[in-house]
């Protein structure tokens, strides 16, 4: 299936295309006589759309010196569109961290505290309340993802317009919004942290190509493969030991 990662059925809200993808895979069961790899012959009908989309919600230019108020202003401006999308779709993907969307103030407080240097060992005191579903430090990644989910669901809800590609969304968030600056500031806290194992998590918060400097995941120690290194530091990242 020649579709972007994250879209194995190709495209949203197109039942006919999705059924064709499934039929093509299932029919191999009736035709193959040995283990077989076959390419799906069609591109996703929405194309890629890179660079066509522009956010229709006007957000103020973010101020680095007032990062918290800039992020809260963005959230306030995006919230009506997010709620409309949630009603229309009957669902939201917000909640990976364990917080609910009515706890968005705590989610923002959490992210701001991390960006300002509260550390990666304990949940920031200002963020008590939500039933957080992950331990530190990896909880930071899911808090970041919930914020991105709110932004993305808000701006992909506009009927009749060309929906943004993932690259459009990344470019918008990381180059135009206060949230992008906040996530980069968290990335900088990770970079400055004493424990280099934390740097892998930076690559779960900032997509490749949007972190200035070395690549988003940081490096792998000499003499280890990526998988060996990742296996060795997983317990630390999910808070099982230090």
């Amino acid at each position, binding site marked *: 299936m020649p579709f972007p990662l994250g*879209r194995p059925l190709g495209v949203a809200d197109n039942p006919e295309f999705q059924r064709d993808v499934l039929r093509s895979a299932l029919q191999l069961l009736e035709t193959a006589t040995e283990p077989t790899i076959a390419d799906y012959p069609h591109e996703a009908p929405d194309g890629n759309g890179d660079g066509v989309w522009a956010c229709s919600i006007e957000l103020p230019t973010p101020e680095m010196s007032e990062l918290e108020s800039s992020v809260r202003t963005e959230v306030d401006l995006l919230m009506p569109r997010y709620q409309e999308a949630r009603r229309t779709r009957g669902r939201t993907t917000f909640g990976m961290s364990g917080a609910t969307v009515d706890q968005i103030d705590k989610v923002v407080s959490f992210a701001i505290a991390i960006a300002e240097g509260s550390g990666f060992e304990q949940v920031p005191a200002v963020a008590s309340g939500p039933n957080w579903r992950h331990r530190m430090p990896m909880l930071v990644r899911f808090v970041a993802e919930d914020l991105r989910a709110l932004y993305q669901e808000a701006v992909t809800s506009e009927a009749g317009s060309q929906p943004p590609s993932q690259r459009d969304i990344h470019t918008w968030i990381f180059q135009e919004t206060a949230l992008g600056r906040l996530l980069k500031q968290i990335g900088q806290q990770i970079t400055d942290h004493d424990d280099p194992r934390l740097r892998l998590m930076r690559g779960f918060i900032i997509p490749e190509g949007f972190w200035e400097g070395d690549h988003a995941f940081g490096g792998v120690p000499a003499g280890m493969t990526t998988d060996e290194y990742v296996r060795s530091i997983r317990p630390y990242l999910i808070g099982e030991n230090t």
Partner: protein
Amino acid sequence: MVRLSELHPEEAQHMLGRAALLKRSSFDFDATPWITPRPLPESRIALISTAALHRRDDPAFRFGDTGYRLIPDDIDPAELVQSHISVNFDRTHYQRDLNVVLPVDRMRELADAGEIGGVSPIHFSILGATESFLFEQTAAEIARRMHDLEVDTAMLVPV
């Protein structure tokens, strides 16, 4: 599977590394793994998603988690969240339509049309970013559950 040329070079390199690891792995089977499947109109099919989907009340997938979660076929999509750790996946379509990663509605339509024999009442979800050889025990457990559910065919939906 996305074309490597459309990935960021670092991500493409990571994928190639995974492929090389698989190539070096050896898999031993007690019997010939190839079988002739039941005809589709007689086959009950279950989905296996690698998108780390789970019910909000289920334990979230943690980084490196090799377990699995059960997803009822009639689940309210609002009850599902995704704990996949990658930030490089396109979530914009999944946020609009669950069927992009877990095509439950499409499978039911194929069953209603008689193109497949039926749909399992339970589907399965794993966190696909973990090395495949670590999933041996989970794969065996899922296979046993599918046998109990009289599932004939597993449709892997890799995110």
